[in-house]
C-alpha cells in the first residue's frame, strides 16, 4: 500500500464540507498563496517549527544540536534553519516538546507519514461516529499532489459508506482529479482570481471545473477567501460568478481573512506577508455576500 504524508487531523469540524467531519490535512502545495493559513504545509517535508511562546529557554537544544542551529542570547532564542539537517535531536531533548504533537510543542516537525491502511484505522473510530452526519474531508496543502495514494484511502472510505470531500485549488493536471473522481462525493474548489494568477493555472482550473461539473455540478462548492488587497475585488467576484453560472455550480462559501496564521509564519522563521492587514468588517462581508446572492448563488460566510 502507498503512503500518505499529512500534518494534522481535525476530528470535529463543521466548516469543511457537508455536516460534521474529520479533516485530514495533507502535506505539499505548489501555490503558496500569501494568505495561506498553513505555510507549514507547503513543503512535503516541513522545516523545523519553533514556537517561542512554548519555549522555557532551558538551552538543551543549544547544547545538543550538531550544527549550532539554536542560539540563546539576551533572553531571545534564535533559530537559524539554514544549517538544520532535520536530525530531530533538539525535539527529543526539549522538555516542552513531544515528537508526536508538534501543535502543542516548542519544537517540531509537522510531517507524519503512514500507510493508507494504517491511516484509515486511525481515522475509523471517529468516521464511524460521524458516518450518518458527515464524513471525511481531505484538505491540505493541495491533496491533488498525493492523488494516487489518496485515491486508495478514499476508495476504502467509499467501500465503508463514508462520505468523502476533497478540498483543492484544482490547478494541477486533470489526471489527478480523474484519479480521485470515482471516490469523491463532494468537492470544495478554491476559486480566488487575483492579478498575479498565472494564465496556465487559471486555464487548468477551468478545465478541471468543467470536468467536475460535467460529472455533477451539485457536488461542487466554491470556496473563496476574501483577502483585503488580493481577492476582494469586483472583477474577481464577477469572474467567479461567471465560472459558476457557466458550469451550473450553485453554492459558494466565503472565508474571511484569518489573522491567526501569523503564528505559523513566525514558527517557520518567515515574514508574515499580510502583516498589518485589516480584518474585514461585518458589513463588508455582508455586502460581498449580497453580490453573490443577487446573482442567484447560495452563499455562506464560513468563519
Amino acid at each position, binding site marked *: 500500500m502507498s503512503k500518505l504524508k499529512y500534518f494534522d487531523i481535525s*476530528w*470535529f469540524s*463543521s466548516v469543511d464540507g457537508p*455536516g*460534521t467531519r*474529520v479533516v485530514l490535512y495533507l502535506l505539499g502545495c505548489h501555490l503558496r498563496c500569501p494568505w495561506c493559513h498553513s505555510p507549514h504545509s507547503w513543503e512535503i517535508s516541513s522545516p523545523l517549527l519553533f514556537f517561542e511562546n512554548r519555549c522555557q529557554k532551558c538551552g538543551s537544544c543549544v547544547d545538543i544540536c550538531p550544527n549550532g542551529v539554536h542560539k540563546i542570547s539576551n533572553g531571545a532564542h534564535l533559530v537559524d534553519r539554514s544549517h538544520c539537517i532535520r536530525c530531530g535531536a533538539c525535539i527529543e531533548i526539549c*522538555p516542552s516538546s*513531544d*515528537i*508526536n*504533537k508538534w501543535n502543542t510543542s516548542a519544537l517540531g516537525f509537522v510531517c507524519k507519514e503512514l500507510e493508507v491502511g494504517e491511516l484509515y484505522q*486511525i481515522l*475509523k*473510530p*471517529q*468516521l*464511524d*461516529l*460521524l*458516518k*450518518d*452526519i458527515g464524513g471525511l474531508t481531505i484538505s491540505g496543502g493541495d491533496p491533488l499532489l498525493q492523488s494516487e495514494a489518496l485515491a486508495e484511502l478514499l476508495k476504502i472510505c467509499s467501500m465503508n459508506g463514508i462520505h468523502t470531500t476533497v478540498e483543492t485549488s484544482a490547478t494541477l493536471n486533470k489526471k489527478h482529479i480523474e484519479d480521485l473522481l470515482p471516490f469523491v462525493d463532494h468537492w470544495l474548489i478554491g476559486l480566488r482570481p487575483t492579478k498575479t494568477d498565472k494564465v496556465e493555472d487559471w486555464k487548468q482550473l477551468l478545465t478541471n471545473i468543467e470536468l467536475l461539473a460535467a460529472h455533477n455540478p451539485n457536488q461542487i462548492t466554491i470556496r473563496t477567501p476574501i483577502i483585503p488587497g488580493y481577492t476582494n475585488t469586483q472583477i474577481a467576484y464577477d469572474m467567479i460568478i461567471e465560472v459558476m453560472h457557466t458550469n451550473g455550480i450553485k453554492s459558494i462559501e466565503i472565508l474571511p481573512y484569518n489573522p491567526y496564521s501569523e503564528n505559523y509564519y513566525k514558527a517557520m522563521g518567515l515574514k508574515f506577508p499580510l502583516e498589518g492587514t485589516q480584518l474585514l468588517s461585518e458589513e463588508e462581508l455582508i455586502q460581498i455576500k449580497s453580490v453573490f446572492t443577487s446573482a442567484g448563488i447560495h452563499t455562506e460566510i464560513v468563519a
Partner: protein
Amino acid sequence: MNELIKEETIIGSTYRVNELIKSMEKRAWADRSSEWFTKDMFKKIGVEHPDKSVIVRRALAIEEILKAMTNKNLFKGKNPHYQIRNGELIVGVIALGSLGLGKSFPDYLTPSELDVTSVSTKSEMGLFGHDSVNYDVMLARGLEGIIADCKKELKSTEHKINHYNILSDYCDRIENEGAFNKKITNLKSNGKTTDIIESLKGVFEDHDESKGNRTKAYDSNLKGLFEILETHIHTNFSNISKKRSSKQEPSSFPYLKQIREILKSKKNILHNRQDFYQSVKISCQAVIDYAGRFSELAKAMSLDEKDPIRKAELNEISRICSKVPAKPASTFYEALQSIYFFHLALHSSMSQLSLGRLDQVLQPYYKKEDHEKQQELFECFLIKCAERLILDSTTFVKQDHLDFGSNLLTIPVPLDQWSESNEFLQNIIIGGQTRDGKNAVNDCTYLILKAFQKTKLYTPTLNARIYKEQLEDGKYLNAVAECLFETKNGMPVIGNDEVLIPALHKFSGIPLDEARDYVIDGCWEPLLNGSCDWTFRMFNMLTALECALNGGATLSSNEILLRGQKMTYETALPAVDKSIDFEGLKGILKKHIKFFTDNSALSIHMLYLIDQAVNPDPLYSALLKGCMKTGRDKTWGGADYKLAGIIPAAVPDTVNTLSAIKKWVYDKKEFELADVLDAFRMSYKGANKVQQELFDKIKLKFQTDSPKFGNNDKESVEMMQWVLNTFWDCVKESHALAEEVFLYPPKKGDEARIKSLRALAGYAGKSLKEEFGENFKINITAGMGTFELFDIFGGGNAASADRIKAGEPIARNFAPMVGTTSFSIGHLLASFKKLGLNRFAGGAITDLCLEERDLEKNGPNIIKSVIQNFMYNDGNMMTITISDKKLLGLIYSLCEKNRGGDEAAKKELKKYEHVSVRVGGFQMPFVTLPPAMQKSYIDRPMSPIN
C-alpha cells in the same frame, strides 16, 4: 394565566410554570438558613419512648417532622413549609436538606444508643438515598390499602403470638409432670426420631387434663407444637442423642428447653413483625394526615381567594389532597400529587430516594386529550422537587447540618460537601424496555422529556434508558438528543440497556424481568425498580497500585512514615528485587486489589445488620417489594433483593501509570523503578539538578509518550482489559469469601473455623441465612467511578503518570484523565468495545463535555450520533454536557467577586444560574461550586477529549 406563551420568552410550557420557576430561583438566591428546622422544634422521640423499638421510634419521628412541617407556630412568621404559593398546582413543601448539607430531623435514638454510635460510627443522621420507589402499588391501592394490610397482619400476628404463648404454657406444664419425664427417659438413646415423636405425642395426650373433651383450637395448637418439634428433632436429633449419653437430669431434658428457645425466637420475630407493621401504619398515616392538612389549607385559602379561576384551582387542590395518597389515584393530577406527597415525606425524613420509572407509572393515568394540562402539571411537579435549591454558596457554611454518620462507612474519604450542597439524590428514569422486553417508550416518556427541556432544571436527574430497537426508533432518540442539546445540562443521562441488563442478569444473578426493569438512582447507580435495597463500597485503585509498587504502603514524601503509610500487606519491593518482572508486578498488584475488594465484600456482609439498629425505614418499606409480605423492614432482610456495588475510583489513572511503567521501566528499560517512585513521591521535584533532569525526563515520557486510556491504542486497551479482568476476578473471589464467612451456616465440622473467622472480623452473630432464611443473599455488583469525589480521592495519592503533583484530582468517573487523549470521542467510545463493560452492573459512567461552538450547526444530530456510537461500542453509561469555557471563566470571576461581598456581582450572577456542569455524580449549577473546582473547569480542556 394558563395560555401557552411564545417559547423563547419563557421557561417552561406555560406562563404559570415560568412564574413558579422565577419565584423558586428568587428564593434560591436568598439566605435560607432561617428556613431550617432546629432540633429544639421537635419532640425528643428517643427520650420519650425509650421502651419502643427503634423502628417504631423512627416512625414516630417521621410523624413528628410531618406535623412540624404544618405547625403554624414553630417559625417566626409563616412556617415556610406550610404554604401554597400563588399559581401552584402541586402542593406540599419538602424540608430543606441535601446530601452535602444534611437534614434536620427529630432525635429518635435513646441516649444510650446515641452513646454507642460513637463506636458504630453510624448515626441516626446518616442520610441515605440510593433506592428507588415504584409508585405503582401506592397509586393503585392508596396508603389506606397498605394500612389495611398492616392491620390485617397485626391481627394475625397477635393471633400467632397468643398461640405461641399457649404452647409455652404446655411446655411448662409438661415439664412439671413426673410421668412425662419418666417416659422420656425410657426412650432408648438410639431410638429413631419418628419413634421419639410418636412417644412424645403420647406423652402430651396422656397428660392433657382436658382429654376426651378436646376442642379444635386445642388440636391445632398441639399440631403446631409437633410441627416445630418434628422439624427440630429431624435436624438436631443426632447431636442431641449424642449429648444425651452423658448423664442428664430428666428435668433438664433438652427437647423442652429447645422447644422453649424456638418458641421464644419465633415470638421475637413476631414482635419484630408487629413493630414493623405498626411503624408502617404510623408513617403512612402520618403522610395521609399531612396531606389532609394541606387540604384544609387549600380550602381556607379558597375562601379568601378573589380570582374565580384560582379559587376553583384551590378547591380542586383541597379535594385532591383529601383523597390522595390515602385512596387510589384516578387521574394524572391525582397520581402526581400522590407521588409528590410520598416523595416529600421520604425526603423530609432522611430517605432521599428516587422517583423511579415515572413514564411507566404515570402512563395509565395519562389522557391524550388533556395533554397540555398534564404537561403543565408535570412541570409544576418538577419544580416542587427542585425547590430546595440554594444558589448562593456564601450561605452554605451556616446551613451545614451533617454529622459524623454521613459517609455511612461506604467510602474511604470525607464527602465533598460543598459540591453536594444541591444534590438531592432524586432521579427519574424513562424509556428502555418493559419487564417483558418490549419497548417501554410511551406518551409520558415524551411528556417528561419535554418538561425537562422546557424547564431546564438540574434536579431531579433525568435518565434515559436506550436499547437496540430504540436506536432505529428515530423519534425517541431525536427527543433525547434534542433535550440534551436544548438544556445543555446533561439531561438525560444515558443508560445502555444492552449492557446494563446483561450486567444485572447474567453477571450479578438478578432474574431477567427484574433486570429489564432496572432504574438509575443516587448519582448514577443502576438498581432494581422498587424491589431492592442498595449499598456500596468504594476504594482507590491508584492506592492499590501504590501499595503494589511500595510493599503495601502509599508513596509518601512524609519522612515520619518511613516507607509510606501502610495500607495493606507487606509485599516484595519490585524496585529492590530485580527478579520481579512486569508480570510479577501485576501479580503483586492483584493481591492488593484483592485486599480492597475483600474489605468491601466482607464489610458489606458483616455490617448488613447494623442499619436496622439505627436507620430502619418504615416509610420506604411500605412500598418496597418484599417488606410488606415478609413483615420485615428493608434494613432487616425485607427487600426482595439486596444489591451492593464495589466501585473503585482512579481506574483510568491506574491504567495510564501502569502502562507508562511497563513501557519505560520494563520494556525500554530507560528508567529505574526506584527513580520513578521517587519522582512520584516528590511530585517530580528533584533534590538537585541531576535528579531534576531525570525527573523531567520521566515526566515527559510518562505524560506525552505513554499509552493513555481513551486513545484506543492497543497498549492502553490491553492494560485496561487486564485491570478490569483482575478487578472482576477479585470481586468474585471476595464475594465468595464473604458468603462463606457471613452468609451460609457453617458446614458440618467447619463451625469452629467459621466462628473464629467471624470473631476475627468482630462479628458474633448468626449466619445471615440463619437470620433471614434460605433466600437471603446479597448480590454484589462491580462498577467504576468517582462520583463527585475525584478531587478528594486524589488527595491521598502521590504524583502519577498524569498527575504532576501529589494530591491532584484523579480522573473523573470512567473517563480519560482530562487532557491526556489526543484523538476523538470516537476513539474513546471505540475503546469501550473491547472491555466487556457488560459485566459492570455497578455502573461505569463516562462524562463527555462538548463545546457549545462545535454544536452550532447540526447539534442534535451530532449528539444523536454520539449516543448511537456509544451504544454500538457497548458503552455502559454516559452523560453529555454542553459547555462554553469562556462563559464559565466569566462566571467564575463574578463568583469570586460575590465571595468578596460584591452585591453588584451577585446580581449579575443570577443571569447565569442556569449554567451547569457535570460533577461526576450529578449536574450542578456552576455558580454553587467550590472555587477550586470551578477553576478546574476553566483551566483544563472542557472535555476529556480535546
